[in-house]
């Protein structure tokens, strides 16, 4: 068996907080050190095989985009390594962000912000491949038109400016621009989140077609569980910077195992007749600046026990290729001391 295309190995990313004078005084008075850091991503390991689409799901601030940016070589991880095809994309040393990034292309949520408003669509698409010598000057025009057609637009749209296109069309252009680089890996960060459902369906269908025709490999970041179910082979669920469950989409949706995954699934409104009985997760998402000790989900978890408050659960095997980071899957949560 060949090595996976993408190997993310115990990657962490912390963003140091700039302490204000007031913070420093307050910290001194409270007897703790000032500053601190946002623990955006902690100890994430994940592989993506060639031709595979892996979903990354979680609520706002759980570290999805940060992980995507590390994989794209935009951020260097604080710890850990990311290998693409066995070669480092980035390592824990800040000065060692290897510019392999043309091989990884990222597609963002906002189709309005991600295109240069003053640049013709054709130039936007061909700029990258030209500067990196991926296409020759002679071929550029034909190639650009072919790409536009591949994403379901007309070849002659190359001469238009972004404002002449709707949100769905702009997202197609963003996809064409990414494909023009002939990337090995696509990172889609909430790529359909801002689109209307009828337009979202069109763009998802395009993605499925491209996947079939080009054998795309992708990291598909989304907070939308039904979109992820539709396009992903495997899914990682993140909570406060960590992967808490990783399984094939089929198994995960048939039977979520981690208490957070279960709670997330129960919170999501589903399309169907009849009032839904909402069983929301209690409490709020804690701050990633000062994540709870032990299992970060313990303040909200209905199964939490004493062990959860002190010991960070490791990702352990839960059968059939699934891993879960929960003490319930690893010897139990411990007994409450008798009152």
């Amino acid at each position: 068996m060949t090595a996976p295309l993408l190997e993310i190995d115990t990657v962490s990313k912390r963003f140091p907080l700039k302490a204000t004078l007031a913070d420093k005084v307050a910290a001194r008075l409270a007897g703790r050190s000032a500053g601190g850091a946002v623990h955006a991503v902690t100890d994430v390991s994940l592989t993506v095989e060639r031709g595979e689409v892996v979903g990354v799901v979680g609520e706002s601030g759980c570290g999805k985009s940060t992980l995507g940016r590390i994989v794209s070589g935009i951020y260097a991880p604080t710890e850990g390594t990311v290998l693409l095809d066995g070669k480092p994309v980035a390592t824990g040393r800040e000065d060692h962000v290897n510019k392999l990034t043309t091989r990884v292309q990222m597609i963002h949520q906002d189709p309005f912000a991600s295109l240069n408003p003053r640049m013709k669509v054709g130039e936007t698409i061909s700029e990258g491949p030209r500067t990196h010598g991926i296409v020759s000057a002679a071929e550029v025009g034909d190639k650009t038109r072919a790409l536009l057609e591949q994403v379901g637009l007309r070849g002659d749209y190359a001469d238009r400016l972004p404002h002449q296109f709707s949100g769905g069309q702009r997202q197609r252009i963003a996809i064409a621009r990414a494909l023009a680089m002939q990337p090995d890996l696509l990172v889609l960060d909430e790529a359909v989140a801002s689109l209307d459902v009828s337009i979202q369906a069109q763009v998802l269908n395009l993605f499925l077609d491209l996947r079939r025709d080009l054998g795309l490999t992708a990291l598909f970041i989304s907070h939308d569980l039904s979109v992820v179910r539709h396009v992903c082979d495997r899914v990682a669920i993140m909570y406060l910077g960590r992967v808490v469950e990783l399984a094939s989409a089929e198994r995960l949706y048939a039977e979520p195992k981690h208490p957070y995954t279960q709670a997330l699934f129960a919170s999501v409104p589903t399309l169907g007749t009849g009032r839904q009985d909402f069983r929301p997760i209690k409490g709020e998402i804690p701050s990633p600046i000062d994540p709870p000790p032990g299992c970060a989900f313990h303040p909200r978890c209905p199964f939490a026990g004493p062990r959860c408050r002190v010991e960070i659960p490791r990702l352990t095997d839960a059968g059939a290729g699934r891993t879960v980071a929960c003490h319930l899957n690893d010897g139990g949560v411990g007994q409450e001391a008798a009152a």
Partner: protein
Amino acid sequence: MSAALDIQGLTTRFDTRGGTVTAVDDVSFSVDRGRIMGLVGESGSGKSVTGFSILGLIDEPGRVTDGRVIVEETDLRSLSPDHLRSMRGRKVSMVFQDPMMTLNPVLRIGDQMAMAVRVHEPMSKAKALERARDALGTVGIPSPEERLAAYPHQLSGGMRQRVAIATALLHRPAVIIADEPTTALDVSIQGQILAEVRRLADETHTAIVWITHDLAVVSSLADDICVMYAGKIVERGTAEEVIGQPRHPYTRGLLDSVPGQHAPGTHLPQIPGSTPQLSHLPSGCPFRNRCPRATQLCASAPPLARFGDHTALCHHPLETT
């Protein structure tokens, strides 16, 4: 029993450079006390303008040109500006997607809520603060007493939205119009708020218009649903009817395009074309350039097809599903 909110023929136009557009076109619906009406449609369909029109909040270059907005037997459109202002916040209030449209960033939660109470009902500040605290409790805010002293920026997005909803509740209005109030929130927080809103409608008998683009949210929350397209209500019925047996081809297409109900990896049924621009609508049925059932007849204005109280604005409504 008469409806808490009864809208008849509401029409709102905007003067734009490209001419006058009708953003809300002959909209009629009513909401009984304790019921939740889901107003659903894609972006630009006219949901927000409908909400603003109900409250008389349309400014230049727009104007409400027609229709009645009856809240507990009073036609808001017949009121003087002062009288209308006294109804707003007291009889009918609005919650926005961005809670900071309601909240003042430089005032403590308690102070601004007490002010909102005393605008309409003279009472001591202590009494007003009590009312504010109770309202915060009603929307499920933990330790409401302490939150009174907080500034908006000290609260999470979900908490701020609850404070905005609590503020809308201060005078126990007959009607609340909520415009995409959970769209910017995480699902776990949205779930909490939807549960509270359902309880509110059941317990306080407030009539709620819940505006959203999210079909899953309306299907699980609302009693009744209006589907909007290009300024018109194209389908109206109970949630069961509209979701379970849609009659309008647009509703059918919209429901089908939601992923999650189809075999993974397969093509989703999609509505062709893009969401309409009001300045470039086809004559007759505005959906006809995207509709799989369109015929020549559709170049003329579609009639309101009735299936009991369930209606669809269409020449060729779906008879069975």
